[in-house]
């Protein structure tokens, strides 16, 4: 319990720091934010002052920060200059798309990487081991913005079996309940009307982006599983279990894997951050309507409130996930508790 409290208290300075960074960044942008908003031509002095006051920019900087912090705590993180929607509503609209993509990518990477890494560890120094380790290094070095294009080139242009962009065919109008298309397409109303065609379409759209996004995590998980397994397999208790005459596969599956999983879970958590990084590039390539594409578009459009608010929420999400992982780690690993 004390541990959780400490973790929670640890969050405060981090979140405060992130808010401060976001606050400072937006003020470092060259040019006058008021002029950016109303345009240089429409700047008659009265309107300029009015706008400045409305934005709170006439106050001293520490008061500005105070109001910014207060608004943030109250859940108001700004309004888009372009669409006039609140940043929060824009984020919520797009977040499920990124989550769905990231989840499928990580799931696939784990489902493949874990067994591959285990086999490599068991058959150490075999051809398979060398082959897997070299391919995983290639996967790890992959510029995913190029990898995504190559996937499109092969699967969409050459073979013509997958769509190039978006989340689902325009034909289908899916009501947004969860925002996860794999779930929304299974609603009874949708199934009654179109059968499983929308689900199939959503899956097809998901295929290439999740391969592109999952490649680096797959490589990392396979390598991590291998080295973690190797370390555990060298321990005394594994030899004891084998000496007792226990079945080889039982030892690997039950004794070794359980202990090897701890560093793997930590790796998985660290990958969460890289998933968001990767999503920025993957979503741009596949026109996936998630937060990555949203942030890039807002930078191109110089929509500063969205950049500021978006970065703030994304970093909050990552920090919270990291904390969650620390707690899971703590629960899983009895060594931490003493």
């Amino acid at each position: 319990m004390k541990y959780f409290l400490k973790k929670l208290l640890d969050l405060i300075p981090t979140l405060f720091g992130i808010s401060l960074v976001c606050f400072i960044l937006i003020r470092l942008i060259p040019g006058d934010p008021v002029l950016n908003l109303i345009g240089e031509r429409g700047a008659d002095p009265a309107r300029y002052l009015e706008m400045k006051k409305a934005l709170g920019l006439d106050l001293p900087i520490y008061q500005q920060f105070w109001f910014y912090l207060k608004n943030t705590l109250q859940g108001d993180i700004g309004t888009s200059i372009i669409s006039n929607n609140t940043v929060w509503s824009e984020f919520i609209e797009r977040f499920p798309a990124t989550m769905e993509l990231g989840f499928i990518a990580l799931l696939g990477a784990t489902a493949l990487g874990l067994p591959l890494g285990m086999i490599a560890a068991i058959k150490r120094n075999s051809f398979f081991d060398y082959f897997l380790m070299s391919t995983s290094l290639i996967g790890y070095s992959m510029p995913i913005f190029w990898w995504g294009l190559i996937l499109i080139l092969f699967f969409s242009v050459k073979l013509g079996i997958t769509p190039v962009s978006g989340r689902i065919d325009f034909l289908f109008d899916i009501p947004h309940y969860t925002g996860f298309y794999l779930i929304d397409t299974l609603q009874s109303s949708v199934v009654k009307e179109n059968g499983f065609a929308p689900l199939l379409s959503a899956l097809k759209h998901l295929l290439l982006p999740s391969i592109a996004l999952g490649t680096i995590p797959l490589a990392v998980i396979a390598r991590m599983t291998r080295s973690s397994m190797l370390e555990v397999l060298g321990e005394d208790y594994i030899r004891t279990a084998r000496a007792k005459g226990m079945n080889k596969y039982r030892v690997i599956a039950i004794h070794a894997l359980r202990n090897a999983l701890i560093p793997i879970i930590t790796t998985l958590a660290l990958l969460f951050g890289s998933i968001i990084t990767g999503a920025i590039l993957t979503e741009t390539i596949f026109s996936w309507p998630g937060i990555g594409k949203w942030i890039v578009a807002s930078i191109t459009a110089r929509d500063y409130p969205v950049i500021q608010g978006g970065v703030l929420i994304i970093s909050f999400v990552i920090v919270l996930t990291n904390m969650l992982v620390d707690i899971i780690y703590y629960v899983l690993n009895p060594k931490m508790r003493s």
Partner: protein
Amino acid sequence: MKLFISELFYELKKNKGSMIGIVIILFFIFVAFFAWPLAPHDPTFIYSEFLRLPPSFTPGGNAQFFFGTDDLGRDLLSRLIYGSQVSLSVGFAVVILSLITGTFLGVLAGYYGGSLDKIIMRITDLIMSLPSILFAIVIVAVLGPGISNAIVAVSIVAVPNFVRIIRAQVMVEKNKQYVLAARLFGASNFRIMFKEILPNCMAPLIVQATLGFSDGILNCAALGFLGLGAQAPMSEWGTMLSDARSYIESSPWMVTLPGLCILVVVLSFNLLGDGLRDALDPRLKKQN
């Protein structure tokens, strides 16, 4: 130091992967240095009668342009050759900038500890909690797009890695006898930190610097791809890739080649980094 290098090279020679990495890196360094005599054309010259020509070894190719031309009629091979100049210098600049800053901060944090350490670690934790590309994108959005701003952004993102590694190492080293001896001799803190302790922290630093090369090249290329890095007409691989995107169906070679160059260079630095880590970390050596 001489002994250290020859011993390191002896260890490295046993590792096939890192030898391959070194050979590829040397090849690209050679290409970058001799870009001018090697490139068959001026990388920015526009041959307006040869738009999106396929490579010469495919049907429809022209022997004059080995890898074909891009959407503006510039020779692709020459652009790739000059691109190696940009990527390698970008990687070098990122490593130097982040190495110096990160080492300095890491040594300070590890040596002095206390509140200075707390402040430095808080800031590095903060940077690390943000996804690297996102943070770099935001910095470039603030500073304005361009290759030098991209280098600054990517370097800032890379600093925490160095800080953490050096700090951990310094915390171990500072309690050793030779530090005490130096202090008894009346050496200043500065001298102890940078002349006594730092040389003993070289091993992890070398590994991180090598891996920092690949990260730097990859991140700068990603920024270029998003239109935030190198600007036209500079031939940078990431930017070339983003220009080529619209022609993926009709001119796939424009997409394939620049990305392949990025992959090969990044991969070779990772190969070398892995080999160095195995060679320099005695704990790992025992296991293998």
